[in-house]
């Protein structure tokens, strides 16, 4: 499994390179597969047309549509997975995910309210982001001492976790309320938003900026994250500013989650199983885990979206269904392994 006396640098470079290749391949695959399949030469021609500016052929138009959707899938999956690793380190619990603290539930309340009131697409997105930020701020106010790493931090951040769970269930009650009073015609859109759907999700620059910023923070604090994951509060005696790091982790994973659910709804399981699988395969060292989980999360969601588009074609499934169908059994299997260990 892990060869320690080989240079960890080389190992990291090899693993990350392979994952970059896989990510690019998954994007290419999503360009080729669909109701009208494109062969490799067609893909090549269409790509050249796209790069030179004129998307006039049918192939180029198709590719543009598919690629922009795949890019949204990638940035969303990468953000969720990275947020998952951060949340797991913050709560020192490998079973935590980006949604456990209710940030996505807050986004659901906002988005569903906008859908209920027949808001335009940008209003739905804005409301989702607003809801996520509102819950994050409430959490921060209610559990500030815990986030900063008071006495409770040694025991596994229970106040923060419980506050998040309660806020989450309160938000879900509001969601249920809105679903039950919503007129029939809007129900489908609302349910699809809840499951997480990439159809019609616009490709924007902001999520990429958020991801890039979070990645810079993640790599800069990767060593400190290892110390925090190992020693909890005692990490301070190894020179890690525990309070500041935990605050930054909370902020960073919150923004990543908000950005992901804003563009694609609350797609489940990505932020849980991808970090988990990566930790299982490559070990818990955050210096490798953070970039690896980010790449793998993006690739995973691109592939899941290809399945969502093609499984029951011409009918399109919301991608959240696919991730949950893959994720749930996988997670149960992991849990079983964990109990045996």
């Amino acid at each position, binding site marked *: 499994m892990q060869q320690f006396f080989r240079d960890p640098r080389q190992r990291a470079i090899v693993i990350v390179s392979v994952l970059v290749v896989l990510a690019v391949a998954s994007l290419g695959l999503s360009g080729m597969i669909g109701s009208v399949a494109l062969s490799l030469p067609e893909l090549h021609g269409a790509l050249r047309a796209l790069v030179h500016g004129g998307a006039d052929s049918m192939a180029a138009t198709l590719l543009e549509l598919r690629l922009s959707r795949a890019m949204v899938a990638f940035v969303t999956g990468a953000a969720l997975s990275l947020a998952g690793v951060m949340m797991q380190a913050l709560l020192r619990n490998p079973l935590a995910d980006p949604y456990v603290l209710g940030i996505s539930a807050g986004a659901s309340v906002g988005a569903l309210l906008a859908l209920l009131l027949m808001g335009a697409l940008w209003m739905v997105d804005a409301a989702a982001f607003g809801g996520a930020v509102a819950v994050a701020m409430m959490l921060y106010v209610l559990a500030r001492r815990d986030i900063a790493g008071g006495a409770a931090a040694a025991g596994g951040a229970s106040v923060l976790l419980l506050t998040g769970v309660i806020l989450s269930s309160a938000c879900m009650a509001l969601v249920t309320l809105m679903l039950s009073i919503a007129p029939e015609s809007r129900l489908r859109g609302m349910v699809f938003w809840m499951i997480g759907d990439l159809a019609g999700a616009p490709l924007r620059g902001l999520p990429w900026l958020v991801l890039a910023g979070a990645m810079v923070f993640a790599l800069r604090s990767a060593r400190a994250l*290892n110390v925090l994951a190992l020693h909890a509060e005692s990490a301070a*005696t190894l*020179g890690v500013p525990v309070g500041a790091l935990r605050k930054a982790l909370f902020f960073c994973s919150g923004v990543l989650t908000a950005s992901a659910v804003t563009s694609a709804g609350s797609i489940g399981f990505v932020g849980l199983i991808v970090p988990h699988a990566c930790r299982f395969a490559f070990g818990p060292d955050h210096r490798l885990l953070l970039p690896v989980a980010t790449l793998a999360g993006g690739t995973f969601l691109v592939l899941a979206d290809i399945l969502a588009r093609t499984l029951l074609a011409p009918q399109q499934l919301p991608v959240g269904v696919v991730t949950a169908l893959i994720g749930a059994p996988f997670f149960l299997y992991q849990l079983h392994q964990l109990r045996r260990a």
Partner: protein
Amino acid sequence: MISTRALCLKIGQRTLVERLDWTVNGGECWCIIGRNGAGKTTLLRALAGMREADAGSVAIKGRPLADWPLAQLARLRAYLPQARSDAFSYRVLETVLAARHPYHAQRYWEDSDDHAIAMAALASMEVAHLVRRDVRSLSGGERQRVAIAAMLAQDTPLLLLDEPANALDLAHQVSLMRLIARLCREQGKAAVTIGHDLNLAHACSHALLLMGDGGWQAGPIDDVMTAPALSRYLGHPIEIVVHGGRRIFVPVQDDA
């Protein structure tokens, strides 16, 4: 190395330590003894800078703890907590290498010098053969020895250990205390150890801090380790038996 001036520690209304004036110099190996809940761990956490003093101050090398940057402090003192929980499946070597964190603000990966130090620390605790194991698969005593190895790899002049002999078998308890005594003697390190074994403390420490009910008594081991003082602070009569030139501490049997 480290000193307290008029240090007071409280939990709620209860005073654990009252006006403690205490100095630990390089080369000294101290043991703290007291009853459960006497505030030994709280005191050690205050010395480590993980807990604020309620009054008075703690200083390392004459400079108050709060004035030291965290990273510099991490190169001066290491702290072994009483218990640890492992949430993630790090390898033994990774946990020891992580203790090199304070030395490498610039490095992303550890280098061969860190590996050499980590392996030496593991060997000194006789756990070098566990180097690739998942820490969550270790026994309690093995995990404790790995944690102590990590602390040694941090390579600080001051060691603060909260019940380091926990979960260790008899042979390893003795070899650990001897190792700590040797580090103090040969490398001029200072060590403060919380323990419950009077005989081990007497054999391996130079000095003793007794504490209980806010009171304290500190001094060279033979001055403080007297039957009346031990009996008072431990809440049970203690007898001293001299056997083959060694002093042995035994609790008096109640003939009820």
